């Protein structure tokens, strides 16, 4: 565990800059809640949770652009600092390793989202259109990517096949929409006590105690994951 403690120390050294950055973000978003001081460790925790949730959930979850941007600037900042360190210093190796890990988490997280976007393109675009600007699942970059991707796929299909088909057979694009199976089972860990979660078709209720683990169809607990009352493992 010395690695993470080391990181924590290193990261805490830069808390001030992170707070400033976060204040910026909050200003941009016109959020009226108080800018709570947030440590780099906290950002990492949030990202890690988002990452595991994203990996386990069948559908696309809320994007984490703010956290990701914070972390990216933090990583850049740390890299800057590390240039002054002696390369043979033990701390250098540890920090470098930790940075690699963080980078992997971020890359893997975004990759996972792209995979879902590519698999369920039309479904995700349609769903996001019905949502308010505040709780769109796609970040603006992802939205553009999804649109582009849908268009390219369509172009490809048209060029190779559908334009040679009889007119009445061409449409039916809505038949081709792929949606994720929300009833697939996931592993879940409760963060806080939640009572009366309905499981199964016959309205059976279960109380979740903090830290308890369950296997449960995703759709029944999707809102708990959304509200961070539980996390997927």
């Amino acid at each position: 565990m010395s690695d993470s403690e080391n990181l924590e120390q290193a990261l805490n050294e830069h808390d001030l800059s992170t707070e400033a950055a976060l204040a910026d973000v909050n200003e941009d978003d016109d959020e009226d809640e108080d800018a709570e001081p947030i440590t780099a460790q906290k950002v990492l925790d949030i990202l890690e949770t988002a990452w595991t949730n994203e990996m386990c959930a069948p559908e696309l979850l809320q994007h984490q652009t703010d956290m990701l941007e914070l972390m990216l600037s933090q990583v850049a900042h740390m890299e800057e600092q590390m240039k002054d360190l002696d390369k043979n210093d033990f701390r250098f190796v540890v920090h470098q390793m930790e940075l690699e890990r963080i980078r992997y988490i971020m890359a893997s997280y975004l990759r996972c989202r792209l995979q879902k976007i590519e698999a369920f393109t039309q479904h995700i675009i349609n769903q996001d259109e019905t949502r308010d600007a505040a709780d769109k699942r796609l970040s603006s970059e992802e939205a553009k990517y999804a649109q582009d991707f849908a268009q390219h796929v369509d172009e490809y299909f048209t060029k190779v096949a559908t334009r040679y088909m009889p007119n009445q057979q061409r449409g039916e694009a809505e038949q081709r929409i792929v949606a994720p199976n929300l009833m697939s089972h996931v592993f879940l860990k409760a963060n806080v006590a939640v009572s009366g979660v309905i499981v199964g078709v016959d309205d059976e209720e279960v109380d979740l105690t903090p830290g308890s683990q369950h296997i449960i169809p995703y759709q029944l607990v999707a809102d708990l994951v959304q509200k961070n009352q539980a996390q997927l493992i």
Partner: protein
Amino acid sequence: MSRSNQMFGDNAFDLLKDLKRSAQTIPAFDDDGVRQVLEEIKAIFEENVAQASSYNNSGDRSLWPLLNYRHAALQRNKRCLLAYLYERMQRIKAMRWEFGPIIPSDIKQALCDPEVQFFNNYSKSLASYMRSVGDGQGIDLTGNLRPPKSLYIEVRCVENYGKFELDDGEVVHLKKNSQHYLPRAQVEPLVRQGILQHIA
């Protein structure tokens, strides 16, 4: 239909079976197969249209089952054909992640024009997404594919590559069969391209 032992949909199904059985990264685009399926779709459709109009005139309900049967065959053909294209598309996408933005020439021969175009489009929009992520700082998502286990890895050169400069300015000569101990993050692309081989 004149062909004796063949059923509707056989051609389309063959397309899929061939694709599934091939061990290559991506087999050559089956131009003939696709055209045959498209022709079959067209033929079935025209027969159906002809019969539907005669049904409208005569009101002969005995034609119903045949119409339905043809419609089902048509749907099946279409579905198989699109599945074939979709699967190829998945493989083309995987290639972008594996080989980077340029298609190796031996694989390019196996693709048809729209597929090459799709690859280029896909590659472009992926690149512009990676650049725009994180407030314009950009992340290379095609790196960091595996969880990092150690900072440095031992690699062996499979072919002569020449000089390779590391981030800190150090220059390494990558000669065939030489072994090096290098930072994983920087040599990962070379390992994926097959120039270096990761040894335990």
